[in-house]
């Protein structure tokens, strides 16, 4: 196959053959396997930790709240913490996506479609693993409605993809100014306590409530709680604002994936 390399692109000429398409599929599988293997490392429970992590963290906060005698519902905490951790992790993965565009194969260039394909598959599986354990507990232990469980799983997928999209847009900036990672960490920490992750929006008031109205996470977590028959303010929130946030987030994820090829190429000579 003929390949043309210029300052603008590195592309192959003509249609990809069935063999090339099969090779790409094998490479996607390899990259996924490598990512998950690296994540599980030598841990005895491996990927099970991805399922356990939101459950354990929720239980810790539940304990803290019971000590503080706060009357927050268990389901509200489980949903809030799971969705916030998913947002946090996906955003960070998006921001770090620029670090390795080789796909882990060092002797040959991997097509960008392979990288994008493996990123999408990874995100889907990661979103599922991080929300599945909690969904199961909500269903079996707390007798949550099925529609609520399904909504929770769908919102987990949405929030994971959208956060990664935002992270991917921040990635070039982070590469140029690595200090941004610290700033983002502090912002996320503040948002964790300030946004309705640990408590329903209805318990906030005044400026705190107003600020949360301007935070997209609020809309997702309150929607999930609504379908789980929990305390939720979603019907009192401005759906036009939600639509606006959704539009921006969807645009950022489309942009995030579409700039990978250009970005990958540009940063090969950065050090």
């Amino acid at each position, binding site marked *: 196959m003929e390949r043309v390399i210029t*300052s603008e692109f590195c592309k192959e000429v*003509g249609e990809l053959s069935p*063999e090339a398409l099969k090779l790409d599929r*094998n490479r996607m599988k390899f990259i996924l396997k*490598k990512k998950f293997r690296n994540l599980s490392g030598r841990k005895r429970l491996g990927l099970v930790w991805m399922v356990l992590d939101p459950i354990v963290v929720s239980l810790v906060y539940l304990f803290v709240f019971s000590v503080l005698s706060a009357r927050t519902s268990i389901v509200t905490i489980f949903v809030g913490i799971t969705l916030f951790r998913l947002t946090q992790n996906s955003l960070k993965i998006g921001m770090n996506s620029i670090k390795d565009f080789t*796909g882990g194969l060092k*002797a*040959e260039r991997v097509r960008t479609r392979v990288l994008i394909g493996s990123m999408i598959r990874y995100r889907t599986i990661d979103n599922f693993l991080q929300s599945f354990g909690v969904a199961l507990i909500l269903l079996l232990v707390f007798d949550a409605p099925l529609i609520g469980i399904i909504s929770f799983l769908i919102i987990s997928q949405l929030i994971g993809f959208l956060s990664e999209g935002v992270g991917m847009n921040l990635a070039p900036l982070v590469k140029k100014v690595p200090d941004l990672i610290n700033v983002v960490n502090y912002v996320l920490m503040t948002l964790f306590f300030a946004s309705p992750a640990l408590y329903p929006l209805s318990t906030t008031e005044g400026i705190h409530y107003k600020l949360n109205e301007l935070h997209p996470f609020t809309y997702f977590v309150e929607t999930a709680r609504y379908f789980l028959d929990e305390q939720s303010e979603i019907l009192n929130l401005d759906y036009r604002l939600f639509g606006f946030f959704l539009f921006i987030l969807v645009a950022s994820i489309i942009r995030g994936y579409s700039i990978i090829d250009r970005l990958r190429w540009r940063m*090969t*000579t950065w050090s």
Partner: protein
Amino acid sequence: MVLEESEVDKNIPKSTVIEISEFSVDYHMFKRSRKKPLGEFEEYNALKALNININDGEIVALLGRNGAGKSTLLRSIAGLLRPSKGKIVTNGRVILLAGADPGFITQLTGRQNVIELALAYGISENELPDFIKSIEEFADIGEAFERKLSGYSTGMRGKVGFGFITALKPDILLMDETLGVGDREFRKKASKRLNEFIKRSGTVIISTHSIGLARDICTRGIVLDKGGIVIDSNAEEAISHYINMTEKS
């Protein structure tokens, strides 16, 4: 990701498998100074407007001092570095042999790694048993082949990695001198395997400091210095020029 046929220059002769025209590479290095405490990117010119045509079947020695731009050129041809100017057109599958790690997963055994990587490098399931056997026999690490790679020594990992990459079938092989792994006995074996690999590959470019290797197997030589071509000629002439150049300095 793909270009239309009409966008491609049809004037390139069929036998030319690598066409490099006016090709320059600039690295962008982050630098902090008193004047710019937040830092800025500084450009460093690594390759300067190179023009090279390489034909099918040629074995080219890329000679030059450290930092002359040899590795940059190989990585550029492999499609791993973005040029600042110019163009490279390659025709065929390009494999870069630089180091002896094709992309190992350390949590898997040697055998599992070979299987996973083989599929990712386009080895078909029919070819797989022979492919694995060839690497197992070459690496000759006994029962360690069934152990996780995380427990391998650098030498063992190098043997499996070198065995793997040299079992592939590229149309264009780019080699960045890599025989630094293993013991004396292994190097002898590796040298033999490398020669077979080179013969099997259509076109080869070897970046090397070894005059012997360049003289023995190369048909053409290119000497680089400070990112530019000093001489592009037959292997013997290029080697003589390189020797003179290094002796003077």
